């Protein structure tokens, strides 16, 4: 089998990239998806809030996915379901499907495998290993797609968005959510989700608290929680037990990059995703990446935006229309956790969106972009928090005149 562009992953990033590659002149485009249907995790995200940027209306996850699946069909894009890519080497893809091993040749490849949840092992949760400890996303799939109620008395560990959404979902389905326990002094989810998922239902959010023990041998019977000091150590005498039968973990997501690193794609230390330039190109010739496999986004709309860049450039690569010019690096300065893309091709002649996360909660500060010592852009920000991605637009004009590496810092306004 030979294709122009092969997209690994049929979630929002993969769908967006495939459609865009086709629109920009790639003739044969294939999506490979390991699940039984396209749409990825959006299919289990039945809550609303998707698509405000993309479609100017508020959709649920399945509705958002549906629109892109229709575009895939309208554009005659091939897809394989129940098929998993095992390896990529020199643009040769080996995948395992229902009929066995498949060899596929591609001119360009787009990596769009998304991310996965951190589990109990990742946070060293003490106790036996009873039934009733789930990641929030697994519980979401059980409840929203498979039709199983995962518990009745719940403690949620971590205040990531999926955990917050599940606090509301379980409450609506008749469970009692005792508390959301968060080790940081601030929530790691979007503010609107704190309001409509916790405050609406009087669910307490315990900041700077940790679960120090999970009780129960066969099934969870409760957890011990403690207040934490600034080094995240439990403060003596503050522990108390909460009775519950279920613990949901919402303690972060990690881009899924085993395939990328086996392929020789360079990964970034902070994002844990491929190092990319403003064409969403990786260091491996003809291999592009987009979506949560590059860095974990908080809005699917931004994933779509990014996937379009990857898809379009994959098509241009196929048509031999991509030029590789000198690039400059982007550096995360004071107060900034990371910046994507990590490299900018200054000759591309297009504006660039820099996506970044701040390290702390900041009020009334500004984001300052410097080319060497020279300030080239600054934007005031009344409020910034680590859980909400920041976005700075650098105009084509600005990019054209860059002399060296650029850095972004958080500074006093």
């Amino acid at each position, binding site marked *: 089998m030979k294709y122009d562009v092969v997209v690994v992953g049929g979630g929002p990033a993969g769908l967006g990239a495939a459609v865009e590659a086709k629109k920009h002149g790639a003739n044969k485009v294939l999506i490979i998806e390991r699940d*039984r*249907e396209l749409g990825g995790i959006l*299919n289990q995200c*039945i*809550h*609303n*809030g998707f698509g*405000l940027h993309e479609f100017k209306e*508020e*959709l*649920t996850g*399945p*509705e958002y*996915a*549906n629109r892109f699946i229709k575009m895939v069909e309208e554009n005659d894009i091939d897809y394989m379901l129940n098929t998993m890519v095992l390896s990529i080497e020199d643009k040769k893809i080996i995948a395992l499907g229902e009929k066995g091993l498949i060899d596929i040749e591609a001119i360009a490849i787009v990596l769009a495998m998304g991310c996965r949840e951190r589990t109990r092992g990742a946070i060293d949760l003490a106790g036996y290993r009873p039934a009733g400890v789930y990641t929030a996303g697994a519980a979401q799939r059980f*409840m*929203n*797609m*498979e*039709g199983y109620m995962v518990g009745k008395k719940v403690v949620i560990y971590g205040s990531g968005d999926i955990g917050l959404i599940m606090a509301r979902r379980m409450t*609506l*389905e*008749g469970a009692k959510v005792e508390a959301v326990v968060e080790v940081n002094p601030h929530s790691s989810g*979007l*503010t*609107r989700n*704190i*309001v*409509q998922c916790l405050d*609406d239902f009087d669910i307490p959010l315990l900041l700077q608290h940790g679960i120090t023990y999970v009780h129960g041998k066969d099934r969870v019977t409760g957890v011990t929680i403690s207040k934490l000091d600034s080094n995240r150590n439990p403060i003596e005498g503050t522990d108390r037990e909460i009775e519950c039968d279920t613990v949901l973990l919402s303690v972060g997501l990690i881009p899924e990059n085993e395939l990328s690193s086996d392929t020789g794609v360079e990964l970034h230390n902070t994002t844990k995703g491929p190092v990319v330039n403003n064409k969403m190109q990786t260091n491996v010739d003809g291999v592009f990446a987009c979506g949560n496999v590059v860095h974990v986004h*908080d*809005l699917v709309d931004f994933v779509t935006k990014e996937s379009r860049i990857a898809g379009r450039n994959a098509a241009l690569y196929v048509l031999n229309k991509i030029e590789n010019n000198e690039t400059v690096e982007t550096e995360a300065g004071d107060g900034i956790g990371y910046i994507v893309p990590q490299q900018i091709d200054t000759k591309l002649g297009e504006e660039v969106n820099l996506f970044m996360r701040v390290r702390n909660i900041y009020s009334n500060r500004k984001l300052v972009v410097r080319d060497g010592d020279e300030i080239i852009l600054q934007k005031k920000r009344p*409020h910034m928090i680590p859980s*909400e991605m920041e976005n700075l637009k650098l105009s084509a004009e600005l990019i054209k005149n860059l002399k060296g590496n650029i850095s972004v810092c958080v500074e006093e306004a």
Partner: protein
Amino acid sequence: MEKNITCIVCPVGCRLTVKKNEDKTYTVTGNTCKRGEKYGVEEMTAPKRMVTSTVKIKDGALRLVPVKTSDSIPKELIFELMELLDDVEIEAPVMVGDIIVENVLGTGINIVASRDMCKVS
């Protein structure tokens, strides 16, 4: 009277200040769009929420199909609505936007399917 609330209309999450004036009208500040202003006033007078859930489906690819309210409903009706949805069972196939329950709880709002699901025998 003044109240600080976070707008939940979109993911921006503007921090609104809603002030009740002497003539019983409200002034909203801190919003960055028109919808935020509407939300601010509504939240003080008659709070509403979109509700998304699932209903059982027969012969579908999955056991459940996701549904949503076609518009936001009064907050106090949420649990009554959830109870009503407990007993709803539809048959595949269903298409996104299909009406599952019409004029739910007399609100004039429909419950609609939020995905396609084909029939699997």
